[in-house]
C-alpha cells in the first residue's frame, strides 16, 4: 500500500494557491525529455573534454607524456599543469560562496597531488569517444609521498576549528560540569559512533557546456546550485568581466550539496573553451563523481547521565571530522545536542583532523544528519536502560526554549509531531522489550527518533513583469535542483496577485535574473519566496493605486487592503460586485506592462531574539532476518513541523526522498578507502549502494500545523533537510528493538548485525 499524503486545508481565500497540492509546473518538460540539463546543450562544432585522474593520493607528477594522445587526428589539445594558461595566485580569486577557510583546490595548478583521483589533465577532442580514448594514452610518472587517509590515526592531531565557514557556529561553552554529572548519574550511557564517508552521487553527473561566442563571451551551462556562484568563480579565475559570462542552468539533475561549490569540470571546460576559442563540454564519469567533496567521515562519542525518572543530568557530545590539508571544512555536528533537551550539565566538543582527501562538502542536512542520530541513538539506549518508553523519555526532557542560547523558539510544534506520528504509527502497541515482536525468523523492531534543522533566510531579489493580458513572469537567479522551486514560486506569485497558475511563469537558473543566494540549507522558499512575495506585493499595491485613481471606476479611492485579488480581478471586499480586471485597470491607465523588482531582507531584529528551526518525529519499523542479518525498513512515519507548507505535494516528495536518504545512510552508503592507496575503491553504483526501489516500502508523511510570523513573511521554513535528520537513528533504534544489538557504526550492514 502506498501511503496517502496528509494535506493541510488550503487557506480559506478565493483564488488561494499557497497550500495547494499543485502538480509541478515543469512536470511536462521532465516527463517528455524536454528539460535540458548541463550536458544537453548541443551546438555545432562542440568539442569534448575528458579528464585524466591521479592514480596516487599524495605526491608529485614527475612527467606527463601526452605525445601519443596528441598524435591522434582529431585530438585538439591536452591541458596539464605544464601548458596551462596563467592563473591567479591569490586564494581569494578561487573562493566561492560556499568555500571554508583555507586554500581552495586549483585544478592543473602545479605538479602537486593532494588527493586520489585529482584531475591532472584534460584531453580535448572532436568527439567524446576520441577524447576518452586519447585519455588512456597519457602516461604519467609520479613520485608518491606517504599519505594519511585514516581518520582513526589522523585524529591524534585533531584541532579545534574557529568560525571557519559561513553558517557555522562553534559549539557553545560548557554548561555546568557534565563530566562530574555523568560520573554521579544514577543511570548513564556512553557510546562511540562512526559515520562512513558518503558521496552525493546525484543521478546527473557533473557537467559543464561552455558555448564560446565570436566576441569571446561565454554562455556557461553548469550543474550548479547557484548560477551566480558559477559566474563569480569563472570571472575571478579566468579574469573575465561579468558582462562576458552568462550562466544558464534551467535544470539540475539533483545535487544534494554537490553543486554548492564550482566543481573542476567547470574550470576545465572554461579553460579549454577560452584557450581553444571553441565551445567545449566536459562531463565527469561516475567514478570521477568520487573525486571531489563528500560527507566527511566522522567519529563521535555521546555520553548521557540521567535520574531514575529519566531527567537528563549530563550530556557530553564529542566529534572529530575529516577535513583536507588545505581547507577547514566545518559543519554543525554537536551543537544540536545542547539544544534538543533540557539539561543543566552539557559539554560539546568539535574537532577537525587533516587528511589527504579532497575537502569535504555539505551534503543534505550537513552536520545534523550525523550528529543528531548519535544523540538520538544514545537517548534510545538510555531509555532501554531506564526501562522507559523512548518517546516518554523525550517528552520528559522537552524544552520550549533553546538551552544553548536561552532564546525561545519562534515556533516549535514538536509535541504535535510526537503525538500525531505516534498515533499514525501505532506506537502505543509497541512491546518495549527487545526481541519481543518476532514473526517466525523475522525479528520485528520499532524505533523512533527526533529530527531538527535550522530555519534560515538569506537576502534575495526578484523581478516581476505583468502583461496587460494578465500574464505574469517572475524571476530570480536561484536554482531548482529538484525540490520544486519553479512550482512553489509560481504558486506564491499567483497567490498574491490572484492569478490562475497557468498565467504565471517563474524563471530561474540564469545570471541575467536578479540576485539569489545558493540553493541549499532549506532556505530557498524562505529567501527567494520572500523576494517573490515582496515584488508581487508591490505590483499588487501599484495595481490597487491605478484602480483607485480611476475617477469613474468602481474601485475609486480604495486601498490594496480593501481589495481581494482573484481570478485576474481586483474585487472590493465591501461589495464583490465592484470589480475590475487587471486588463481593464492597465488599459485605462495606458499600460501594456507593469514591472518591478524587490529585495527581501530577513527580519534580523525579531529573528535575533528567537531560536529558529524545523522539527520532526520519525517512527520506523524494521524486519531483520535472524539468519542472514538483512534489514528491511518496512514502514516509516515522519511527522514534520516546518511552518507553512507552500505545496504539500512537492513538500511530501521532499520528505519521502529524504527518508530514502536516511535509509541509505543507516544501512547502505559507504565510500570505502583502500588505506594502502588512499583511494575510494567502490566508486560506482555497482559497489556504492544507494537505496533502490525494492529497498523502500511504506513511508507516511505528516505535516503538522505550525504558525510562525518570525521566520519570514511567508511563515514557511523549508523542508529540504529536515526529512533526513533522525531517520538513521530511528532505523538503528528499530534494529536494536528487533535484535537487542546496539549498533553505532553507520551504515549498519548485515555483517555488523551478524557479528554483534
Amino acid at each position, binding site marked *: 500500500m*502506498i501511503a496517502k499524503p496528509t494535506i493541510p486545508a488550503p487557506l480559506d481565500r478565493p483564488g488561494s494557491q499557497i497550500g495547494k497540492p499543485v502538480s509541478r509546473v515543469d*512536470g*511536462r518538460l*521532465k*516527463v*517528455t*525529455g524536454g528539460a*535540458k*540539463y548541463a550536458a*544537453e546543450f*548541443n551546438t555545432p562544432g562542440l568539442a569534448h573534454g575528458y579528464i*585524466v*585522474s591521479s*592514480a596516487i593520493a599524495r*605526491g608529485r607528477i*614527475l612527467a606527463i607524456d601526452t605525445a*601519443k594522445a596528441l598524435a*591522434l587526428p*582529431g585530438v585538439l589539445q591536452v591541458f596539464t599543469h605544464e601548458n596551462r594558461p596563467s592563473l591567479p595566485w591569490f586564494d581569494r580569486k578561487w573562493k566561492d560562496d560556499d568555500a571554508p577557510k583555507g586554500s581552495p583546490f586549483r585544478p592543473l595548478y602545479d605538479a602537486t597531488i593532494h588527493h586520489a*583521483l585529482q584531475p*591532472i589533465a584534460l584531453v580535448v577532442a572532436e*568527439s*567524446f*569517444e576520441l577524447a576518452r580514448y586519447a*585519455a*588512456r*594514452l*597519457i*602516461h*604519467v610518472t*609520479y*613520485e*608518491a*609521498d606517504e599519505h594519511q587517509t585514516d581518520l582513526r590515526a589522523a585524529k591524534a592531531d585533531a584541532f579545534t576549528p574557529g568560525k571557519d565557514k559561513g553558517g557555522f557556529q562553534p559549539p557553545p561553552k560548557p554548561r555546568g560540569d557534565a563530566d562530574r554529572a555523568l560520573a554521579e548519574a544514577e543511570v548513564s550511557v556512553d557510546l562511540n559512533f562512526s559515520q562512513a564517508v558518503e558521496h552525493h552521487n*546525484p*543521478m*546527473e*553527473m557533473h557537467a559543464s557546456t561552455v558555448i564560446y561566442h565570436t566576441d569571446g563571451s561565454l554562455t556557461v551551462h553548469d550543474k550548479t546550485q547557484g548560477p551566480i556562484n558559477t559566474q563569480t568563480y569563472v570571472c575571478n579565475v579566468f579574469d573575465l568581466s561579468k558582462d562576458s559570462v552568462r550562466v544558464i542552468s534551467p*535544470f*539540475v*539533475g*539533483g*545535487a*544534494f550539496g554537490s553543486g554548492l561549490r564550482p566543481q573542476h569540470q567547470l574550470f576545465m571546460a572554461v579553460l579549454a573553451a577560452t584557450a581553444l576559442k571553441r565551445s567545449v563540454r566536459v*562531463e565527469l564519469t*561516475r567514478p570521477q563523481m568520487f573525486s571531489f567533496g563528500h560527507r566527511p567521515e566522522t567519529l563521535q562519542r555521546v555520553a548521557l547521565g540521567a535520574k531514575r525518572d529519566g531527567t537528563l543530568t549530563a550530556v557530553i557530545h564529542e566529534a572529530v571530522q575529516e577535513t583536507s590539508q588545505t581547507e577547514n571544512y566545518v559543519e554543525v555536528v554537536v551543537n544540536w545536542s545542547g539544544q534538543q533537551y533540557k539539561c543543566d550539565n552539557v559539554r560539546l566538543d568539535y574537532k577537525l583532523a587533516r587528511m589527504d582527501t579532497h575537502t569535504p562538502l555539505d551534503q543534505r542536512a550537513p552536520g545534523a544528519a550525523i550528529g543528531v542520530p548519535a544523540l538520538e541513538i544514545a537517548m534510545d539506549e538510555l531509555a532501554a536502560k531506564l526501562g522507559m518508553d523512548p518517546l516518554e523519555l523525550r517528552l520528559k526532557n522537552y524544552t520550549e526554549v533553546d538551552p544553548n542560547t536561552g532564546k525561545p523558539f519562534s515556533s516549535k510544534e514538536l509535541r504535535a509531531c510526537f503525538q500525531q506520528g505516534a498515533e499514525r504509527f501505532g506506537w502505543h502497541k509497541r512491546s518495549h522489550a527487545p526481541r519481543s515482536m518476532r514473526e517466525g525468523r523475522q525479528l520485528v523492531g520499532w524505533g523512533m527518533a527526533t529530527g531538527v534543522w535550522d530555519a534560515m533566510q538569506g537576502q534575495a531579489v526578484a523581478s516581476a513583469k505583468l502583461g496587460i493580458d494578465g500574464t505574469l513572469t517572475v524571476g530570480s537567479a536561484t536554482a531548482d535542483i*529538484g525540490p520544486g522551486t519553479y512550482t512553489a514560486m509560481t504558486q506564491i506569485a499567483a497567490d498574491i496577485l490572484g492569478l490562475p497558475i497557468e498565467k504565471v511563469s517563474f524563471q530561474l537558473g540564469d545570471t541575467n535574473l536578479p540576485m539569489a543566494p545558493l540553493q541549499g540549507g532549506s532556505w530557498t522558499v524562505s529567501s527567494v519566496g520572500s523576494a517573490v512575495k515582496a515584488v508581487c506585493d508591490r505590483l499588487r499595491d501599484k495595481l490597487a493605486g491605478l484602480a483607485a485613481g480611476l475617477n469613474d471606476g468602481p474601485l475609486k479611492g480604495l486601498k490594496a487592503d480593501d481589495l481581494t485579488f482573484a481570478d485576474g480581478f481586483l474585487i472590493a471586499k465591501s461589495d464583490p460586485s465592484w470589480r475590475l480586471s487587471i486588463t481593464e485597470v492597465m488599459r485605462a491607465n495606458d499600460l501594456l506592462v507593469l514591472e518591478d523588482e524587490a529585495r527581501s531582507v530577513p527580519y534580523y531584529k525579531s529573528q535575533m531574539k528567537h531560536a529558529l528551526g524545523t522539527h520532526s518525529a520519525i517512527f520506523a519499523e524494521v524486519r531483520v532476518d535472524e539468519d542472514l542479518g538483512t534489514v528491511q525498513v518496512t514502514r516509516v512515519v515522519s511527522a514534520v513541523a516546518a511552518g507553512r507548507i507552500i505545496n504539500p505535494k*512537492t513538500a511530501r*516528495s*521532499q520528505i*519521502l*526522498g529524504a527518508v*530514502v*536518504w536516511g535509509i541509505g545512510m543507516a544501512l547502505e552508503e559507504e565510500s570505502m578507502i583502500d588505506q594502502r592507496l588512499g583511494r575510494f575503491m567502490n566508486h*560506482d*553504483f*555497482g559497489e556504492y549502494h544507494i537505496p533502490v*526501489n525494492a529497498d*523502500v516500502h*511504506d513511508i507516511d508523511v505528516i505535516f503538522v500545523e505550525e504558525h510562525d510570523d518570525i521566520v519570514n513573511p511567508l511563515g514557511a521554513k523549508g523542508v529540504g533537510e529536515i526529512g533526513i535528520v533522525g531517520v538513521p537513528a530511528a532505523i538503528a533504534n528499530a534494529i536494536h528493538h528487533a535484535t537487542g544489538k546496539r549498533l553505532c557504526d553507520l551504515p549498519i550492514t548485515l555483517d555488523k548485525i551478524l557479528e554483534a
Partner: protein
Amino acid sequence: MSQPTGPAFQGHAQKQPAPPPDAMEVSLTINGSRKTLHVAPWTSLLDALRLHLDLTGTKKGCDHGQCGACTVLVDGRRINSCLTLAVMAEGRTVTTIEGLASGDALHPLQEAFVEQDAFQCGYCTPGQICSAVGLLEEGHAKSDDDIRELMSGNLCRCGAYPNIVAAIRQVMDAQPAANDGGAS
C-alpha cells in the same frame, strides 16, 4: 617511498595506439522515423542518441549499466542504451522518451508520473518511464512488491520510489486485465 610509474587512472597505455576507428553507417527507426547515422563503432546507442541525434531526453547517469537512466525501448523491450553500441541497433526500432507522447497527448505513464509527483530533479525520469513501459509490456508485475523489484534497475537519487510505484500502479489498474503469461 616507492615511485609508481605507469598509466594514469583510466587504464593501460598501449605501445602503439590503435588509430581511431572509421565511421560506419547505421540505419534504424527512432520514434517512428527512419534515420541513417554515420558513427564510429565504439559509439554507444546512448551517445548516438544524445550527441548525434540531439535526443537528450535519454540520460547518462553512469555509462556502466548500473543506474538505468539511459533506458530506452528497442523493439519494445527495455534496455540500457549505454551498454548497447549504436551499430548493434542496425535495423531495429528504438523508442525514447521523446517518442512516447502522441502529439500533445502524453502517454498514460507520463501523465501518471506528473500526477503522482513521481520525480523531483527529473533526471532519472525518462529512464523510469521507459522502463515502466517495458515492465507493463512484460506483464509480470502483479503487486506493488513486484513493481518495486522489477523497477529496481532504475535508480532515483531523489528517492521518489513510493510515488513511482504509485504512478505505475495507477496505469496498471486502469489497464484491462493483463494476460498471465507475459512477453519477454
